[in-house]
């Protein structure tokens, strides 16, 4: 079920990544903020054009890794020193060099899971519905060979007629209105 009604935004289709980046950069300069680009492969220049420079995935990964490291090292220490002390050839109960290996593995495990699932969560995925999939040309192009710029209706500058004329000034292949 669509969450809202009305127009989600205007979607302009381009044939080359260069055209898309030029349009996105110009739109950003002209004061547009609520917009996004859709490309069939990562186009870094497009992300920068719409002012998206850094993300929080590295921070999440670091946090996850440190949590994994701490959790495993403390678990090993607690088990070997308090919960189940074993005398193995007279070695100290707190034999930390041996604990490094599982702690190292868990650092990687938790950091990797945080990177993957953190990335998905920050992207708002998985999501079963998105208004863009209502656009007739989106599914045939955005994951194959077309480049899209979407000006969203939430932007204060957005006016259906004005924005359509504005997008057409970039000579896109087409401009379509996307409904919620």
């Amino acid at each position, binding site marked *: 079920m669509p969450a809202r009604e009305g127009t989600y935004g205007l979607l302009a289709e381009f044939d080359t990544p260069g055209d898309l980046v030029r349009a996105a950069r110009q739109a950003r300069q002209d004061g547009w903020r609520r917009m996004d680009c*859709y*490309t069939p492969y*990562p186009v870094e220049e497009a992300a920068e054009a719409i002012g998206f420079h850094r993300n929080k995935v590295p921070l999440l990964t670091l946090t996850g890794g440190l949590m994994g490291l701490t959790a495993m090292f403390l678990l090993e220490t607690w088990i070997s020193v308090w919960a189940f002390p074993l005398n193995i050839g007279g070695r100290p109960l707190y034999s930390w060099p041996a604990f490094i290996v599982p702690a190292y593995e868990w650092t*990687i495990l938790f950091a990797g899971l945080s990177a993957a699932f953190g990335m998905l969560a920050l992207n708002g995925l998985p999501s079963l519905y998105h208004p863009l999939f209502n656009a007739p040309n989106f599914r045939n192009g955005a994951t194959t060979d077309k480049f899209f710029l979407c000006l969203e209706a939430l932007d204060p500058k957005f006016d259906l007629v004005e924005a359509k004329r504005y997008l057409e000034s970039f000579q896109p292949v087409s401009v379509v209105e996307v409904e919620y």
Partner: protein
Amino acid sequence: MATSELKHDPRIDPATGEYRVIAPGQTFRSITEKISRIVLTPETPLGWFAIFAVGGALATMLMVALTWLFLKGTGIWAISQPVAWGFAIINFVWWIGIGHAGTLISAILLLFKQSWRNSINRFAEAMTIFAVVCAGMFPLIHTGRPWLAYWMLPLPNTMNVWPQFRSPLMWDVFAVSTYATISVVFWYIGMVPDFGTMRDRAESKYAQYIYGLCALGWRGSVRHWSRYETASLLLAGLATPLVLSVHTVISFDFAVAVLPGWHTTIFPPYFVAGAIYSGFAMVLTLAIPLRKFYHLEGLVTERHIDNMGKVMLATGFIVAYGYGMEVFMAWYSASHWEAFMMWNRMFGPMGWSYWVLITCNLAIPLTTLWSRKLRTSIPFMFFISIVVNTGMWFERFVIVVTSLYRDFLPSSWGTYRATKWDYAVYAGTLGLFTALFLLFVRFLPMIPMSEIRMMLPGAKITAKATATEAGD
């Protein structure tokens, strides 16, 4: 003369003088069509069914062999005293080693910005996962009572017993389980954008539904791509130390034991190099028939085969250094037991296995892989890949069996002769691997479309094309 010939070869890029990574004349749409059609076509090639039948039959034999094993216990295998580790451990190390090339290709070559890897990384990662599936099974069934395998996990239990974290076998549990988890996650995350493509290109409702669920709603937003690229790079950065640690920890299983032939410090680097050596051989074994069968010569080119040959040459020499160092240390340590073990390994009753290893891993590949002509000869590289896979299996056989069968006391000397159940389990895992790999080729995009698109000339953005009115 030779250079002018090279210049006219259309497979060679005149700008670099190297073989092209992908054949010229491809567009975003043509490569998407080519790769997704393999999966989305309703017709399955007959050859696929033929090979799947063989793989499936062997996998069924594995089920029979495992059932009998669980009924009778590990006594149906040849393991006894003094050779207490047999096929199960050999196959475990061999399979997990094969998996390592997949991670190397997907992670380490990504960090080194080796974009030629893009064509082969997806199925190399799939190979990793299926190899780890086969590998992970062996230590479990080797315990004899696999239904108690959860004892290896630090779980609270009524016996108040906890795992012993000073043992390398315990480290193995964490290394291999982390490796399996991270490999699956890396593989799946890599496929999400391609699932989006499959969802949008599928014609049947059913396929749209399934691929749509797998795509998690991917729509190619550049914000998403930016986080996605960061996450991929971080996963690659994490998988690199992971893959090096996994075979290192496996080599600790041997190296920590106080046994001539096992107790050496060279084992970790030499195991890792051997893993990559055999893994690249397995990638070639899979890639050469696949590119022929599915007409992917334009995407998996001579350049890939050539580069993999070079990696094998380099890792082969590290392995050769490892073998040389073992022999040297046997003499230099002045340990009677070490010297006898090495003499017995080479010239004892099972010495043939050592010479099979030397022939397959050193004599044949390391003399021929120097030649570019041979490295780009497809039949020869297929032959070499089989030879190296055999050689690497014998390396593990030599390490496990020839270090054990004549121990400190001559009265306890024995021998090792694998039983039919040993062979059934080994052949069964080969069948399971084949069957899983064929399912992957049929139902999932085996070449990452989004990464191939980045390598096409159309993906280049010039500063002029993007100049805005106000200027930057």
